[in-house]
């Protein structure tokens, strides 16, 4: 086969996917930018005249700052909680020689494959006023009135973090490659107890992995919609819920487009940071 005909074949087998995404992904993405400069009329009609009014409205409304703050704060808290849960799992899976390792690994990343609505419904059952935790505490006589665990900030963070654990575990395990059992053995010989060995050797050595896992968790939580919407009970407002609200409740598609572009910008900045980080740790 000549080089030319090979290149021809390559282009031909690449074309369907490239063209499909051009029409169904790139074009809609550009259209988002186009719509963001159109005028929104009362009642949800759109006039195709160029205006920066949507951007002005976006910038002048301090509520958008609050949405950004909420999105970021929830993302930070959920990622930290996911790290707290994911770290012991990842370390265990990395070190264990158990024949169950494969199955446990699948269990650890199973939230990735279970529909978000199903998991969130599970959290409603666990955290609800008559749910597992409140029912259990009441049965034990620990509380009289149920603890408010859902339809608030706490519920969103707890539910969101669970969905992040698979990402965190995978990132941490791939980062554990730098751990060296010899160093720990040496420390043990010199008399360091397990806690000290963990704090002075294992933890510092896995820092790059932790940082990476945190960033992935942050990006995934920023994009999440189902958890904030259902576990927040319509009372927790983040960027993702606002885009949905502007689209369907307020019928302001141009403003929803501006918000979307803003969210994409934030995520692009985060992804660039992530790229920098992976290049450095590689």
């Amino acid at each position: 086969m000549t080089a030319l005909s090979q290149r021809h074949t390559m282009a031909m087998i690449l074309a369907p996917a490239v063209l499909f995404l051009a029409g169904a992904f790139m074009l809609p993405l550009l259209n988002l930018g186009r719509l963001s400069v159109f005028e929104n009329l009362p009642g949800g009609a759109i006039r195709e005249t160029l205006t920066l009014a949507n951007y002005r409205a976006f910038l002048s409304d301090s509520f958008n700052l609050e949405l950004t703050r909420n999105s970021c704060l929830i993302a930070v808290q959920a990622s930290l909680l996911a790290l707290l849960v994911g770290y012991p799992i990842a370390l265990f899976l990395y070190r264990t020689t158990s024949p169950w390792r494969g199955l446990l690994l699948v269990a650890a990343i199973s939230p990735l494959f279970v529909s978000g609505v199903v998991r969130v419904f599970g959290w409603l059952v666990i955290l609800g006023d008559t749910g597992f935790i409140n029912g259990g505490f009441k049965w034990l006589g620990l509380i009289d009135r149920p603890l408010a665990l859902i339809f608030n900030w706490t519920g969103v963070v707890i539910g969101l973090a669970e969905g992040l654990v698979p990402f965190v575990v995978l990132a941490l395990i791939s980062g554990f490659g730098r751990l060296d059992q010899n160093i720990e053995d040496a420390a043990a010989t010199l008399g360091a107890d397990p806690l000290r060995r963990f704090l002075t050797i294992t933890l510092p050595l896995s820092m790059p992995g932790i940082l990476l896992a945190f960033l992935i968790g942050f990006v995934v939580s920023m994009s999440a919609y189902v958890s904030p919407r259902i576990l927040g009970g319509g009372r927790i407002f983040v960027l993702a819920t606002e885009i949905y609200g502007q689209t369907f409740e307020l019928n302001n598609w141009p403003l929803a487009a501006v918000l979307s572009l803003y969210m994409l910008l934030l995520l692009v900045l985060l992804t660039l940071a992530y790229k920098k980080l992976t290049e450095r740790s590689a």
Partner: protein
Amino acid sequence: MRVIGNLIVALAFAYVLAPILIVVVMSFSIDAYIVFPPSGWSLKWYGELWQRKEFHDGLMVSLKIAAMVTATALIIGVPAALAVARGQGRWRDLAYAYLTAPQLVPAVVLGLMLLLVFAPFRLVATLPGVVIAHVVVTMPFVIRIMVTTFSTITADCEAAAATLGASPLKVFFTVTLPLSAPGLLAAAAIAFIVSFDETVVTLFLSGPRFTTLPVQVFNYVTTKTDPLIAALSTVLLVFTALLIAAVERSIGIVQAVSTPR
């Protein structure tokens, strides 16, 4: 110390699996609403589920969409992945980034993007509309898995077959494709799961007259919660578990979700 360590690990696993396990337990409750512990056990919610025509319709629509999406994503994605895996240099990286780009866009943004272009063409709340949307969502998964798969099959076998006079098409169907069967199975199963479970993008593109099972669950859960939805969720879980088992047996689930190279 060892005991404390194991206890922490067990608690961490409990946290991850709790919502999934509780849904299954709750689906066998006898109560009319969510109470813990249930006052008794029964299969009545599964019976109730069986009676509900809207969920039958939702399930059939979701299965139909997932099948069409899997077929489409593989037909256009697998050849593209082969081109990427056999390509070189900047060109290869660019193609790979382009084909996996939809993964970087949040579901709400993707949903809005597609709603805006589908609305003028009356594609909202239609089968073709949702299928197109799901192919966009699943494409990065298919590309990732297949690029990994094709990269592990060396180009040597293909070259040998070509030297012996096989046409490129014959090489593909008699050498490349059979060697990559496990990867193909995994890609198909993952595409099917992703489409079958997709909720947020579909939420933007469905309507009262055309909806999928996850969207039905979402809408139901925003208004009320009862064991009926636990039974429905358990059905969704069983479907997913079967597909995961298939992937685990072919190339391993972790391999399927990791980034190539």
